[in-house]
């Protein structure tokens, strides 16, 4: 009887370890394939040149790298401040009756399929339904008009920004929740207005956490393809304007991966390697920062 239970026990631990192995095998497999195929394809000209038609040597993914940087940067410019302010609201003003509502919406929105956000931005920005909602074709302030953007870098950035907001909000909230009350009270007791306490004391105390939340959001949006497909569509050329289409690494991986040409597939591996490296480096940097307690 006891022997049998012991046997079960060993068996159970073995099955558990097996489960962990099953979880980790795909990761290692994917990393191995990406690194092996990516490194053999990567070269300086690949990183700097424009794409070439299949079969013609010397084609590159330079414009995709540029596009991803531009899209991420613009998305960060919109998404991070908004997420930051909302994070401040639900953490520092948690007693406000509206705060739990916002927190719930953020939590739900964070889980929305990215493609849904892509469709939404397509409908209201690319196609411009937001303007039709108000019965106009475009919003004009003096000589500057904002109308339906068509497939464009700006629409792509907005969709990435929307993806970014809940991630930033949640992690900013967590970071601000770690600011000790005693520190905040010290600031208030010396006659600091609350807004100033939040902006100088809380934010600077939690600055590590804020960097963390930004890195987290950035590594998430840098690899996002679905909403971009519906809002920027992709391009084979360098960036020209925010109202034009733009290339992006995830889009290139998608289209190249589906193509039958060997050299396009190789470039898709190279693009994947770049993305994975970015994600990996950001992740590792984070972990080191956390370990060294540079981030609270």
């Amino acid at each position: 009887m006891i022997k049998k239970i012991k046997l079960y026990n060993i068996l159970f631990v073995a099955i558990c370890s097996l489960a962990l192995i099953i979880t980790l095998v795909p990761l290692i497999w994917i990393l191995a394939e990406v690194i092996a195929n990516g490194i053999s394809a990567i070269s300086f000209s690949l990183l700097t040149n424009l794409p070439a038609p299949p079969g013609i040597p010397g084609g590159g993914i330079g414009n995709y790298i540029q596009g991803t940087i531009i899209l991420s940067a613009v998305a960060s410019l919109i998404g991070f401040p908004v997420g930051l302010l909302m994070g401040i609201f639900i953490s520092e003003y948690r007693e406000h009756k509206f705060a739990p509502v916002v927190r719930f919406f953020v939590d739900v929105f964070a889980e929305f399929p990215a493609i849904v956000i892509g469709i939404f931005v397509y409908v209201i920005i690319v196609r411009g339904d937001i303007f039709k909602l108000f019965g106009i074709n475009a919003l004009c302030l003096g000589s500057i008009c904002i109308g339906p953007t068509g497939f464009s870098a700006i629409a792509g950035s907005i969709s990435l920004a929307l993806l970014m907001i809940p991630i930033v909000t949640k992690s900013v909230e967590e970071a601000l929740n770690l600011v000790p009350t005693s520190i905040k009270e010290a600031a208030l007791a010396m006659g600091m207005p609350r807004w100033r306490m939040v902006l100088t004391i809380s934010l600077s105390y939690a600055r590590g956490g804020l960097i963390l939340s930004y890195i987290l959001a950035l590594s998430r949006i840098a690899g996002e393809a679905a909403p971009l497909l519906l809002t920027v569509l992709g391009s084979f050329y360098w960036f020209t304007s925010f109202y034009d289409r733009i290339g992006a690494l995830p889009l290139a991986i998608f289209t190249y991966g589906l193509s039958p040409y060997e050299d396009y597939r190789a470039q898709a591996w190279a693009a994947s390697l770049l993305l994975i490296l970015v994600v990996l480096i950001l992740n590792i940097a984070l972990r080191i920062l956390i370990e060294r307690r540079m981030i609270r």
Partner: protein
Amino acid sequence: MDIIIDVKNLNAWYGEKQVLYNVSLQIPRYNITAIIGPSGCGKTTFLRCLNRLHELTPGNRVEGEIYFYGKNFKGNIYDSKVDPVEIRRHMGMVFQKPNPFPMLSVYDNVAIGLKINGIRDKKKIDEIVMDSLKKAYLLDEVKDALHKSGASLSGGQQQRLCIARAIAYNPEVILLDEPTSALDPVATSKIEQLLVELKREYTIVIVTHNMQQAARIADYTAFMYLGKLIEFAPTEELFETPKNELTERYITGKFG
């Protein structure tokens, strides 16, 4: 007696729970007033009502009047027209656990209070910071570490840094909430000396659970129990011949 703070019928609630009942008390200027009592008696709440910090916690409530007769402010600080932020600038506060801003340097910890009070002149800031550190008996110990983090100091030094921070923007009253309860006897006695020194320029209100501390440094002592002010008297009187049976039992340790 020259009164700086006149508390009249102060009631305070912590959520639904009333923690102060009709406390009336007159705090004399340029004196050390100690507030003693068992934990949970409302002494910390009372202190936090003096600079309107209590009401900041959601759900908390205060009723009653506190008249403050300062140089630039005279009147009821709970008047609806009064901005609590301004009141707090007339009062410095030092907390139970030393809480210097860990992300700021020793220097900036003191300077930040000046900046929020609109002092921009670098030289003047420099002067006041050094002066405050000196007044807090800290300058000699930290003059080589002014640009290290405020959290790098020892516990006693941190608390003196907090005192320097509290006096830098020249408040008239310094409120201290059990400032030495986390410190060893040597650090404690330094801070006690410092407080006695400081009462020449500031009015000091200190909450302490250490009766001997009150006996050592305070000019006036208030005993609170279950949210009520039981007795308020010159310190030697309160400790030698308390009028109230509860005070007697508490200070002689015959409680409970």
